[in-house]
């Protein structure tokens, strides 16, 4: 037999399991608290919008690029949203170079679904003339990993969209060096991720807590309704547990939205 995980991670995931059974956490937080959140917008001037989010030691950068393209055939009146995520090898010894991992694709798709379902971007406003619309390319760049990429990724994504400005359009051409108006947003979605370790539920898991987790649940809300959900890992949740998690996610929306709106 051989440990597949990094050996230190293996020992520490056992330790956080033991703590979780006593309703404790390695950093002394209570079960329903986030780590410190810091948002910095507009660091990348070449991007139409950008934001860097620190969630504890997790650091995610989001960049928005707008590209003039033909709308999709089945939706000729609106622009597109394309979300991608990269788990960069500089962010963790466990991340490897190469084609996108299933984890990075899941992250991008879950963030995409919430933004799309909550109709955050006014995609109709992106049409500049018949057959031409702005596509919004939203890229999540993971710079340092210590758990909970879903919530930090969503915070970075929404903050970058808030920061984004639409380039000028004249004589049938995009003028990228000139930005005319803020990207029109109609809604703000936030993401709340819990892990289940034994029968303990913990909000905003650290890397050690994610490695120790049996199951993971992400709830994305706009404060009024649920907009997207994703259950992960091989463990299970009871209906009651899911109800409790949804309640907590609604309770956290204003706090998260304040970080997105600020600055």
């Amino acid at each position, binding site marked *: 037999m051989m440990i597949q995980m990094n050996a230190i991670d293996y020992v520490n995931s056992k330790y956080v399991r033991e703590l979780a059974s006593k309703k404790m956490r390695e950093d002394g937080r209570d079960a329903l608290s986030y780590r410190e959140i810091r948002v910095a917008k507009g*660091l*990348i001037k070449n991007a139409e919008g950008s934001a860097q989010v620190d969630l504890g030691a997790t*650091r995610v950068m989001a960049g928005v690029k707008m590209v003039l393209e033909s709308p999709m055939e089945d939706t000729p009146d609106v622009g597109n949203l394309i979300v991608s995520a990269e788990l960069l090898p500089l962010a963790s010894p466990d991340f490897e170079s190469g*084609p996108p991992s299933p984890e990075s694709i899941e992250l991008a798709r879950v963030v995409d679904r919430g933004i799309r379902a909550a109709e955050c971007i006014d995609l109709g406003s992106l049409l500049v003339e018949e057959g031409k619309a702005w596509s919004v390319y939203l890229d999540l*760049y993971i*710079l*340092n990993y210590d758990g909970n990429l879903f919530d930090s990724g969503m915070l970075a994504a929404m903050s970058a969209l808030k920061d984004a400005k639409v380039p000028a359009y004249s004589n049938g051409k995009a003028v990228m060096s000139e930005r005319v108006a803020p990207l029109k947003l109609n809604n703000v979605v936030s993401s709340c991720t819990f892990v289940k370790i034994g029968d303990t539920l913990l909000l905003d898991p650290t890397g050690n807590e994610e490695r120790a987790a049996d199951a993971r649940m992400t709830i994305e809300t706009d404060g009024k309704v649920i907009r997207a959900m994703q259950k992960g890992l091989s463990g299970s949740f009871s209906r009651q547990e899911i109800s409790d998690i949804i309640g907590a996610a609604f309770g956290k929306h204003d706090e998260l939205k304040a970080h997105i709106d600020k600055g």
Partner: protein
Amino acid sequence: MASKANKPELIVGGKRLDGRAFDELRPIKIEAGVLKNADGSAYIEQGNNKILAAVYGPKEVFPKHDADPTKAIIRCKYSMAPFSSLEGHGRSGPNRRAIEISKVIREAFENVVLLEEFPNNEIDIFIEILQGDGGTRAAGLTAASVALASAGIPMKDLIYAVSAGKIGEEVVLDFNMIEDNYSDADMPIAIAPRNNEVLLLQMDGSLTKQQFEKAVDLVIGAGKKISAIQKDALREVYAKIERKYENKE
């Protein structure tokens, strides 16, 4: 180099568009130890370039058959974030340009890292261009050098790189993006400052032998300043902590 059809005037009244003299560097800022998980890291701003470099290792080579029993191997990955350019969205994943740049940067570091100290191991260097503004490979190498030192990797020297080239008949240092696009020659060079040996050199365009010599002179002249900024970044990691205590007392 872009098409010369719409070439803008890059030198007006003896000065460059951003007001610099021909032999003047853009402002450079380097911070060491910026990423928690990496064994060493550095962030550089050079003009509007914003670049992260990180180092992991030495660590066991995987897959094992790539290992060299006599010395460590270096792996280097240079890549540009999809949002790093003003024009367009870059596709992710390495393209031919990125693969070539990664290779020449790796070869420069193979010259100075004391590889024999770590047989069967690898040292990984990652360079991420968050915002690109011309001369990213040179600035990335300068940052990676600081990242390697901050990881405690033994090296013969703290190397740096910067580009020089030609606008019209003028030999000019450290192109920004627009100069890079329309210059008449571009030549990134990496130097080991201890003995001024050349560790990386690429060039395209047109240069006379005299212009080449002039360009190398500009690089080595600017190198003193770049080296000093690199050293200061490494010392600042420790000085910052000392100040924290001084302020308290």
